[in-house]
């Protein structure tokens, strides 16, 4: 997908002024947070599983070449084909070629973040294929021609009425449905026909198992399973970091994933696929392809952001992020929103183009506290800011302010005098109320709340007055 237009600032302002988005965000947040907390509380081993999962990922990443090779050999021994894509353009070309060779007309898709990352739908549509997203949330936003606003609940920003409008417009000849049950049923009937027409089925790969040459998807709807079972050709798109050594390692991650993502103990469907249809099999795809996508990941492997490669795309970080909760996913401008996106988007699409993302974070650390693979998200966001400063990306006004502050801070006498002066002026301006409802230069801050005025002498003056150690 192409990055959205505008800046984080302009997109956030739009999001804050969108009443249906604000309603959706208010509804969703307590639901995900409470459900995760309840699911985690029921599993005493959860914290140990987090440690184990992080350690498995670290071990695999340190020998990623070995595990990928073992995985690819196993897939090919089962009759599957593994493709290696260095970047998004290569990945798109590989998949276009598979569709061309298959003589495809209809391409069904299960949910795949990598396919969003590489901008697959656009090129397949340009080639003239009928591309159908089959996850209900993805289907809704495909009809609305919008990008996902959450990685596991992509249409979270749409109200029931908006979905009803979209279906009415896009499903001619069907009566308008208003209820959730009616809308889900309508999508079931419409998409059922697409599944049976599908020539190429494209899914993601939550995990790849080296031991057995298996790709794993987890879904609640069963759409990914219908996609990959009924299509003649199954294409798995996956980042290189998704490989795990054995089925037993997979179990560690499956115990974490659903609890962290939706607060379920397990998703409805966990499917392990190994190669194409075999002799005697009554159904299943005739061809099985895996497209392993690097797209900047191997660069992350060698740098300061390696921990980010542990990410299993559960969405817990954004579910717990106060900034995401206020502005939703579109404000982040690309495929990956929230805390994980504030690191991934600058890495994939450029530090300069995404200057705002790491700087929009309050560093409150809630994301890090819930990450199932213990990614030090706040640390990485701080590191990202550091990289931006090193690259000279900090705006000149900010840089001048920081330089001025830095100079003053190195002159203790002057610093304290200015501090005393500032404190006194703020108190004077606040008067009896003890709070400032407006302040020149901080209008954006005081627009939504009052600034409490300093209550008395500065800390250093109080320290000295009380005879504190020098």
């Amino acid at each position, binding site marked *: 997908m192409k990055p959205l237009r505008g800046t984080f600032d302009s997109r956030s302002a739009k999001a804050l002024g969108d009443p249906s988005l604000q309603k959706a965000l208010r*509804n969703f947040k307590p*639901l995900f947070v409470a459900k995760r907390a309840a699911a985690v509380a029921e599993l005493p081993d959860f914290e140990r*599983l987090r440690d*184990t999962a992080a350690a498995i990922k*670290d*071990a695999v990443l*340190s*020998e*990623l*070449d070995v595990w990928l090779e073992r995985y*690819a050999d196993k897939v090919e021994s089962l009759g599957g084909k*593994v493709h*290696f894509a260095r970047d998004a353009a*290569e990945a798109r070309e590989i998949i276009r070629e598979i569709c061309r060779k298959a003589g495809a007309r209809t391409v069904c898709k299960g949910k795949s973040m990598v396919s969003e990352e590489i901008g697959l739908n656009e090129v397949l549509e340009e080639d003239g294929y009928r591309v159908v997203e089959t996850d209900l949330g993805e289907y*809704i936003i495909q009809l609305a021609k919008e990008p996902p606003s959450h990685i596991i*609940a992509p*249409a979270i920003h*749409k109200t*029931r009425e908006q*979905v009803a409008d979209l279906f009415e417009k896009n499903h001619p000849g069907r009566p308008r449905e208003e209820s*959730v*049950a009616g*809308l*889900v*049923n309508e*999508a*079931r009937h419409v998409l059922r026909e697409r599944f049976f027409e599908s020539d190429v089925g494209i899914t993601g790969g939550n995990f790849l198992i080296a031991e*057995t*040459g298996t790709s794993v998807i987890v879904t*609640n*709807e*069963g*759409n990914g*399973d*219908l996609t990959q079972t009924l299509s003649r050709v199954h294409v798995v798109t996956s980042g290189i970091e998704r490989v795990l050594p054995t*089925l*037993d390692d997979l*179990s560690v991650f499956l115990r974490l994933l659903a609890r962290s993502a*939706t607060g379920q*103990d*397990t998703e*409805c*469907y*966990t*499917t*392990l*696929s*190994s*190669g*194409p*249809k*075999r002799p005697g*099999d*009554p*159904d*299943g795809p005739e061809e099985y392809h895996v497209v392993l996508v*690097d797209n900047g990941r*191997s*660069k992350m*492997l060698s740098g300061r952001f390696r921990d980010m490669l542990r990410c299993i795309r559960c969405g817990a970080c954004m579910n717990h992020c106060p900034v995401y909760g206020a502005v939703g996913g579109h404000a982040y401008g690309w495929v990956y929103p929230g805390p994980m996106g504030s690191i991934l988007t600058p890495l994939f699409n450029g530090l300069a183009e995404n200057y705002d993302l790491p700087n929009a974070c309050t560093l409150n650390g809630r994301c890090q506290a819930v990450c199932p693979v213990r990614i030090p998200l706040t640390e990485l966001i701080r590191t990202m800011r550091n990289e931006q400063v090193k690259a000279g990306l900090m705006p000149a006004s900010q840089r001048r302010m920081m330089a001025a502050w830095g100079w003053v801070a190195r002159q203790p006498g002057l610093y304290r005098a200015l501090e005393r002066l500032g404190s006194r002026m703020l108190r004077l301006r606040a008067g009896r109320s003890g709070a400032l409802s407006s302040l020149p230069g901080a209008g954006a801050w005081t627009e939504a709340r009052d600034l409490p005025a300093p209550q008395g002498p500065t800390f250093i003056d109080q320290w000295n007055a009380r005879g504190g150690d020098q």
Partner: protein
Amino acid sequence: MNRELFLHGIRQAIASSPGLRARSALPERPQPPVYGDGRIGQFTDRLEAHACSWEEIETLEALPGRVLAWLDERRIERRMAVAPPLGGLPWPDGVYHHSAPAGIDESVAVSLAFAGIAESGSLAMYSGPDSPITHNYVPEFHLIAIRAEDVCDSQEGVWAKLRARGDMPRALNLIAGPSRTGDVEQTIQLGAHGPRQVHVLLVRAKGGKS
């Protein structure tokens, strides 16, 4: 891109981080849960938690009668896709059943699970000539028979069973309840794309009580 060149890039990245390759020891994993005598109870509790219904049957021969009673109670037509190993059971005359892959209008499927998982109330379906994958996802109503002795404590038990068999099926489908979605206003709705109802028929262990 060429595989060797692709892997070479990854090798270079690893080599440029001193000491990274030495950190390749895999950790010890926490022990999966073990339920002892409570295994079947745990399994059926989790089935219910995932909105499955279930009943116990003495032997597999009792299956056709129970399946038909379940359908009749719900006024569902006696037409169904039946897994090949169950097709030879004593189905009464007038019941239409076939073992081909499920068609677009398939309403009912009756399957035999390879294993169960007590920890999560999941059923493991082993794809192949005896178990078409489409039976698991296309119909609205899915009735799944499972032998009590095939219910494992955890996923790890299923992996051990697979290793003992020496092969991996083309598809191993783990099913925990009917298909569901929360994509419209986060309201959970059953029957998104797959079955709306899943009914489990637990076949007692060979030697007596399960």
